């Protein structure tokens, strides 16, 4: 039996009068890959961003590894353990690739530079960009930037990674290089929550697929259950539009 790593109960989020999340219950087990799909505006990105408090939830509770998340009080402790990969990469443009990778381990984990660089180089090799160590982000293609962003998150040695539409800002020919890195992470046993429009990836890599619409989890199950035998009408209509 796998242990629960992330446990979300009754999560609500309002932006002013707009209710974006209306009560989400979600448990993510260790080493599980959960893929969240849904139409735009359904709240799937907001859900992901609430998990590490980039958006402050309006209600509900989030527990990581048995530690209840209580806002600014312990958020940095949790963020150390839960990395995030953004749609628009958000690399630090004034730093080289290597500097991007060693900054947080040195400042947050108080690692020595030598050690941080050793880890950084290990992950740059893993994402196939070791030869770009001294390049600046703007000198890289979108796909390369996103692979650096993944390596940057990995350098904190997180226990889980959140992916917020990691391939949506990429040119089509660069999507696969990023998905391949994500697949290999999943194979290594990384706990992952992925918001994506890449249904092929969801089907192949996901242990569980969640369909989110209107602020609720409408349906969830194995990729085969959700993609091949969707029970809910809203899931069926969404899938018929995109598949």
């Amino acid at each position, binding site marked *: 039996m796998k242990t629960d790593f992330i446990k979300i109960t009754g999560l609500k989020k309002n932006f002013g009068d707009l209710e974006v999340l209306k009560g989400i219950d979600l448990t993510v087990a260790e080493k599980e890959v959960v893929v969240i799909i849904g139409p735009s505006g359904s709240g799937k990105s907001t859900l992901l961003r609430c998990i590490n408090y*980039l958006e402050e939830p309006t209600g509900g509770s989030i527990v990581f590894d048995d530690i209840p998340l209580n806002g600014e009080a312990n958020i940095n*402790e949790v*963020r150390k353990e839960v990395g995030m990969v953004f749609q628009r990469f958000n690399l630090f443009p*004034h730093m080289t690739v290597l500097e991007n990778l060693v*900054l947080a381990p040195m400042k*947050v984990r108080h690692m020595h530079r030598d050690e941080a660089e050793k880890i950084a180089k290990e992950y740059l090799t893993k994402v196939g960009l070791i030869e770009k160590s001294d390049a*600046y982000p703007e000198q890289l293609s979108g796909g390369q930037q996103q692979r650096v962003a993944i390596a*940057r*998150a990995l350098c904190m040695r997180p226990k889980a990674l959140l992916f917020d539409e990691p391939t949506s800002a990429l040119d089509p020919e660069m999507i696969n290089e990023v998905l391949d890195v994500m697949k290999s992470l999943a194979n290594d046993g990384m706990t992952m929550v992925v918001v994506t429009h890449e249904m092929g990836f969801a089907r192949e890599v996901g242990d569980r697929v969640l369909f989110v619409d209107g602020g609720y989890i409408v349906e969830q199950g194995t990729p085969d259950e959700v993609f091949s035998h969707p029970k809910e009408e809203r899931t069926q209509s969404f899938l018929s539009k995109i598949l």
Partner: protein
Amino acid sequence: MNFNLEIITNAMPLLLAGAGITIEVSALSVGFGLAIGCIISLIRMTSIKPLRWFGNVYVDFIRGTPLLVQIFLVYFALPALIGHRVDAFFAAISACSINSGAYVAEIFRGGIQSIDKGQMEAGRSLGMTWWQTMRFIILPQAFKRIIPPLGNEFIAMLKDSSLVSVIGFEELTRRGQLIIARTYASFEIWLAVALIYLLMTFAVARLVSRLERRYDTSR
């Protein structure tokens, strides 16, 4: 009208010494203004309400009143409050610094706000604190963008510091007035004073554009 070049050459040493003092007052004021502006812009971004309120009132008051009146406040009104007179140099520097601080605070705020929100999110998502993200990620990027407006602020201060002549502080403009009082050569002297200001502002503008280019290539 006779144009008397000799008056200008005779006055030049005095005027140039005055220009030196103008540069000194401007540099000190913008220097202190940088420190004040940095602090003010940071406290305007905190979640502590009284601090934020103070920052806003400060910037609104300074930007909403003339520098000349601010100089009078420090030189004439402050002594009435504290009971002894204020040195002209101190009054000039403090009025100009306080004034510059408000404008620099706005420049900083603009620079910081121009940095993509994703940068703060990326820093925070890696477990860095707000201040660490500010210091290592946001401010270094913002700094590059505020060089041109800071240069403009320094140029503005070079010119506006002429206002401290009204409290008898002997910078370039005041020197000009004093020489004219002696020689009555107002055309020659004001022309010379104007040209010296022009030379100074032009030099600073060139320096700023060089700095700008250097930071652009080396990131």
